[in-house]
């Protein structure tokens, strides 16, 4: 077991700057997700930790050891690749045993470790087969078993579920969580899927354009996004952002006056999760929302429309609760949960003092 420390790591590919001085610490035994859209630098950062890519500047420590100049094989880590990269010419058994064989483990230990990893991932029956005879989900299990069999200090996973179909992904996600929390390995998990990051990680680092936008627990990231980008990237539907004028210490939200947050300029950005907006009761103060589309999503109804001077807004209402008439063009009076307002400045940075 070991912690991972990334110190001012930057990476340029020629003129293109892929990473801009990233600092990040992953505690011993922690599960950290690197979350971001494609091209944000998350895979590059992971590959730098693995040693498959060299950083332009900065250093990487695993435990107290500076591994910056070491090749991957000397870093004492394991990795699960996006395309699994299970060796097609080797049986499942030999794939799982590969790391142990390279480490010259003795026969008995190899057999015991392979058996343990295979049992953990339910691939005991597949050990004599070759990867070509397996389904995508089974290959995925082999790749994870191969990584766990070496009992690595550090486990790196690069979009390990992205090649599976939706149903299998959900199943593997739950299983991965159980398996990895049992192993207690320090893990960095790269994904562009925010539900995966939310579901699996102890902490999430949200990345954009080669920088880390915010690091925090899943609930911090979800409830208290540090930037407009984070709020817009995490959550489905993403957080709503309304640009509103500030006057005499008040913010006008389409007819509803809200107390302006401390540090507000002439205009502020109000971040609001769709589920933190409710129907205003009769005679209650609210803001006007013009409905465009209503979609029933199982237990919830997603309403898409405009508010506060034509700005797009999406709200989520429980399908079982009282619902307004769902006709397009209809006006609905809404009220936000005052405890869940996320105030930001015009540049999209959270204002201090905002909850």
């Amino acid at each position, binding site marked *: 077991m070991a912690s991972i420390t990334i110190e001012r790591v930057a990476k340029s590919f020629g003129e293109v700057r892929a990473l801009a001085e990233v600092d990040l610490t992953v505690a011993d035994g922690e599960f950290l997700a690197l979350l971001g859209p494609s091209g944000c630098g998350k895979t590059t950062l992971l590959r730098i930790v*693995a040693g*498959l890519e060299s950083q332009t500047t900065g250093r990487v420590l695993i435990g107290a050891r500076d591994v910056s100049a070491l090749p991957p094989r000397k870093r004492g880590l394991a*990795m699960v690749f996006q395309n699994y990269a*299970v*060796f*097609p*010419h080797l049986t499942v058994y030999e794939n799982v045993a590969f790391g142990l064989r*390279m480490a010259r483990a003795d026969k008995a230990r190899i057999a015991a470790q392979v058996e343990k990893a295979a049992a953990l991932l339910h691939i005991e029956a597949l050990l004599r*087969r070759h990867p070509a005879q397996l389904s995508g989900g089974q290959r995925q299990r082999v790749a994870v078993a*191969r990584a766990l069999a070496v009992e690595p200090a550090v486990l790196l996973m690069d979009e390990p579920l992205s090649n599976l179909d939706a149903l299998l992904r959900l199943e593997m996600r739950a299983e991965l969580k159980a398996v990895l929390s049992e192993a207690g390995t320090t893990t960095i998990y790269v994904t562009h899927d925010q539900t995966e990051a939310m579901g699996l990680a102890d902490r999430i680092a949200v990345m954009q354009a080669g920088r880390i936008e915010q690091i925090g627990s899943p609930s911090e990231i979800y409830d208290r996004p540090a930037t407009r980008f984070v709020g817009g990237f995490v959550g489905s539907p993403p957080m709503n952002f309304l640009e509103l004028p500030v006057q005499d210490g008040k913010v006008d939200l389409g007819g509803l006056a809200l107390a302006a947050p401390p540090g507000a300029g002439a205009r502020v950005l109000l971040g609001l999760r769709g589920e933190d907006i409710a129907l205003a009761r009769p005679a209650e103060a609210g803001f006007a929302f013009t409905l465009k589309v209503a979609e029933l999503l199982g237990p919830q109804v997603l309403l898409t429309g405009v508010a506060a001077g034509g700005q797009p807004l999406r709200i989520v209402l429980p399908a079982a609760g009282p619902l307004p008439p769902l006709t397009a063009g209809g006006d609905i009076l809404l009220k936000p949960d005052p405890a869940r307002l996320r105030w930001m400045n015009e540049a999209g940075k959270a204002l201090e003092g905002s909850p």
Partner: protein
Amino acid sequence: MREPKALPYLLIAPSALFLTGLFLIPLAQTAVLAFQESGGAWGLGNLRRMTDELNFPDALANTFKVVLLAVPLQLVLALGMTMALRNIRRGRDLLVWVWSIPLGISDLAAGLVWLAILNDQGWLNSALFRLGLIAQPQAWLTYETPAALLAAIVIAEIWRATAIVFVILLAGVQLLPKEYEEAADVFGATPWQRFFRITVPLLKPSIQTALILRTVLAFEMFAMAMALGGRNFPVLVSEAFNAQYFSQDYGVAAAYAVLVMTISVAATVLYLVALRVPAEQR
């Protein structure tokens, strides 16, 4: 538009007819020629006369020596070139181009180039003489220096035909996803272990193709041996040539042709079996 069902067959027909007319029929005729004796009776007389020829043991031995020396060296060299190329960024295309030059040179021309380098008045002799390393020009390509003659032919063959092995292997390596080697690296394999445990096994289909092609062509070696060794270095095909044009013994010439073909087919089958990749391991 719906394609007529006959279209694919029509498109294949010219090549099929071409091969039948100019390959299968002559092949059958050669076989007939080899196994039919002068009276018209079937038998092994031609083969026996071939094996009784004075040069036959040398021709057979020389052919096998060149193949067994040159082909493995070519494979090792081409693998080395392919791997080296992967670690080169700048000038990579230039290097591929330079390494592929021999592909475009006919074997007779290549043989004459090497003759100009290696004969007793050749460039190598002049260079060594001027450097004071030899007192007088040396003759290497004679029957008195069989080892040097063999070495010269093997070196010239390696120069001439490693490129085709290299090109086939390069194509194969470029198709391999780099994740396999990265995974091996992450899981502790040294560069040599990666090469022998991952790259070479995954490259087996390409190695097989290259070896079959190269070995079959090496058994058919003719112009290079003629240019450098002439009568001093008989090989199977040159003996066939001599039987055909000097002795005008068409039966023996055909017997040589059948022998070369049999050896080639045997080598091919050997490679197909030895380097087989079962379907489940692809």
